[in-house]
């Protein structure tokens, strides 16, 4: 299983893919923060006519003119969509949709008209050829590296430089565009510069890794960063890392399953995203559900213990079941079972730690009732219900303060 990882060919594929996804991930952060994550998809499709025109004008399969054409088309997509949104009052998403799908249709027709006799395969540019990266090699300082590493690495360095250089400005533009405009920043220039960078990066990556990858790698790693982080700095780092990790996983997965690397990279990035959504510390779905569950259980257990304690003292239960937080039968049964297993309750009487818990809760309840009656002036028939809710939320510190407050009053 480790074997294919070690072949130099796989290493080279992985290197190119990792650089490409890191480059896309860096810009993806900016786009996700600006709610423009769909731009990657739009550009990936919209460049097609540019590629074809570049090919037709130069008359050769030389890459450079095709890339220039693609770059112009990409810039055209972003700027035209922006114009439609701002000056023609079209909804942002729809504007983008209109522009890139139209351009894509135009591109297909151009392919049909011009390139059917000639050997131009738009699919080759659009759907990724990272597996063939090691075929063409160039010399760098005595090392032989894949030729397609050059544009990808260039894009990565460019984006890295731009991210560091415009850190403060981009941050302001992303989080508070109004302030950015008001504080005499060249807001428009900065945003258009970002769009142009996205275009350059996409085009540089198409040739190396294909557009499927660009679509996924602009959106997914940055979204992973967004789910996990609260600061732009950590978001940038996490997104870049997520991009690199999915490149590694994707390459290995593709070799294992004998399929394309870009597709597998998108899938592994998706796996990482699912993991982040489920497990993100604090706000992931599983931590949140666990927190809710354990809280519910605590409330249930405390309620049961307190009730049992009161009954064992032969004092009448001071609330009927409708008071307090509404609880489901399931949690009640589960809590009862748990109490019994833990040995907190025996023969319907709280013992040991269970008894202490019941006493503490009852103390909190009476403290809060007294507080509510004396300090807040609540009517006596309004004391029970809020007390049953709040008793679970009073921590030690607050309990002590309530106590000492009453004590000092009595002095």
């Amino acid at each position, binding site marked *: 299983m480790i074997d294919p990882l070690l072949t130099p060919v796989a290493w080279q594929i992985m290197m190119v893919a990792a650089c490409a996804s890191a480059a896309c991930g860096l810009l993806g952060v900016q786009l996700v923060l600006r709610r423009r994550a769909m731009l990657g998809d739009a550009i990936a499709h919209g460049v097609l006519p540019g590629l074809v025109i570049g090919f037709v004008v130069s008359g050769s399969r030389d890459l450079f003119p095709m890339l220039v054409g693609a770059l112009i088309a990409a810039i055209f997509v972003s700027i035209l969509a922006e114009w439609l949104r701002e000056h023609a009052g079209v909804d942002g*998403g729809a504007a983008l949709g209109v522009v890139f799908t139209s351009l894509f249709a135009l591109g297909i027709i151009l392919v049909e008209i011009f390139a059917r006799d000639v050997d131009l395969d738009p699919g080759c540019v659009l759907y990724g050829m990272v597996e063939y990266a090691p075929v063409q090699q160039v010399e760098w300082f005595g090392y032989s590296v894949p030729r397609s590493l050059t544009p990808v690495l260039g894009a990565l360095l460019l984006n890295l430089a731009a991210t560091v250089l415009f850190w403060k400005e981009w941050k302001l533009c992303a989080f508070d565009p109004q302030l950015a405009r008001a504080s005499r920043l060249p807001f428009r220039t900065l945003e258009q510069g970002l769009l142009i960078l996205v275009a350059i990066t996409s085009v540089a990556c198409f040739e190396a890794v294909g557009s499927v990858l660009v679509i996924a790698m602009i959106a997914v790693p940055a979204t992973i960063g967004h789910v996990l982080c609260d600061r732009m700095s950590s978001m940038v780092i996490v997104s870049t890392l997520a991009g690199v990790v999915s490149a590694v996983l994707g390459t290995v997965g593709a070799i294992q399953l004998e399929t394309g690397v870009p597709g597998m990279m998108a899938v592994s990035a998706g796996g990482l995203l699912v993991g982040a*959504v489920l497990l993100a510390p604090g706000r992931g779905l599983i931590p949140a559900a666990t927190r809710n569950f354990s809280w519910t259980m605590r409330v249930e257990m405390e309620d049961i213990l307190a009730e049992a304690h009161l009954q064992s003292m032969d004092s009448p239960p001071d609330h009927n079941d409708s008071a307090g937080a509404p609880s489901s039968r399931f949690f009640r049964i589960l809590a009862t079972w748990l109490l019994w297993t833990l040995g907190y309750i025996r023969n319907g009487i709280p013992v040991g730690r269970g008894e202490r818990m019941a006493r503490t809760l009852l103390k909190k309840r009476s403290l809060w009732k007294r507080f509510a009656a004396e300090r807040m002036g609540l009517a006596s028939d309004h004391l029970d219900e809020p007390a049953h809710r709040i008793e679970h939320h009073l921590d030690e510190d607050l309990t002590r303060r309530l106590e000492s407050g009453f004590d000092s009053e009595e002095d």
Partner: protein
Amino acid sequence: MMISPNTLVILLGTTALGTCCGLVGALMLLKRRALLADAIAHSTLPGICIAFLLGGSRSLAVLGVGALLSALLSATLVSWLPRVTRIRKDAATACVLGIMFGAGIALIGIIQRSGLGGSAAGLDGLLLGRTAGMLRSEALLFGISAMMMSLIILALRKELLVSCFDPRFGLSAKIPARSIDFLQTSLLAATIVIALPAVGVVLTAALVVIPAAAGRFWTDRFDMLLAISALIGAASGLVGTLISSLHADLPAGPVIVLSATTLFIISLLLAPRRGWISRHLQQRSRLQDRQIRQFLDGILNSELEGSSGVARKRQPGITAAIDRRNRLVSSRNGWIKTDSQQIRLTQEGRKRAVRARKALQIWREWLTSEASIDRDLIDLDEQDIEKILPPDLIDTLQRSIDHRGTS
């Protein structure tokens, strides 16, 4: 020109398809979910591949069920992720699109390498579509389902209207917002699955987005938007198929989309009120009105100061062309009289200038007294001011101006 019966069926099929896409697209545009169509279209790919691997056949029914299931899954994910996590709508759309499409491409790779037969051609065809090779039965199937879905939308017009514009009101009026929402998403998914074999993954999104965006230029009303969007969709389906049946080398899908784009551009330029040209003209005529108003005001000023007219020289701060146009328009309307040296206001022109000046005064008064609004808004025309302010308020303000004038 001969249209064979086969072409006719295909023609009807694509027209119905266009209608259906236009209707669904209008709903999506109003919910600001236009790009959801793109995401759904891309994410049908893994469903199709899995259906192919499991079902082992290329029959449209099997692949269609797979496509529909994965379309519904991704639509649900796109609407569910922003609710339970901090991921926003656009990022959710882009992520689902990228991941599902990537998975589809990877599955295609697996299918091709595992040598399951001529699958490559069939599945690749889904990326770009193939109307030309559409079978008569297929076209019939698409046409009928598209018509049925259009009928559903028309029947539920009222509920959809409420869910697009005021879901809260819908809740209070006992319209089940959730199920309507789900119905919309399912309609979108079904439409896309139907359109997929004809126009392909990418262009399906175009058929949904473009007619609605074009229709939005023409109207502000829900019913009209539905109608116009459906019409544009139908027209592009019809025209596109016709053109591509005349030129055998042009694939129908892109031609249909480009017809829709052409209609979009026409709408963008020519639509009354919201169109680019009419907006431009409106701006120009406002500017001219304002310049003439200032011109007349200048003459009025000097006449009030006692001179019997203004010398025929240009007012400061105005180019010669504008000055010439001001004079031309004013004299054509009979507002000024020009003799060899002087320009004088006629009865009519004087009335107009006084009215403008008064309205402006009233506006200023209202802004400073009644509304504490920015003084920049003062620059309005007299017609607007008289329209905005109720007449009795105008009287009150006039009185307060007069009062200040006398005291």
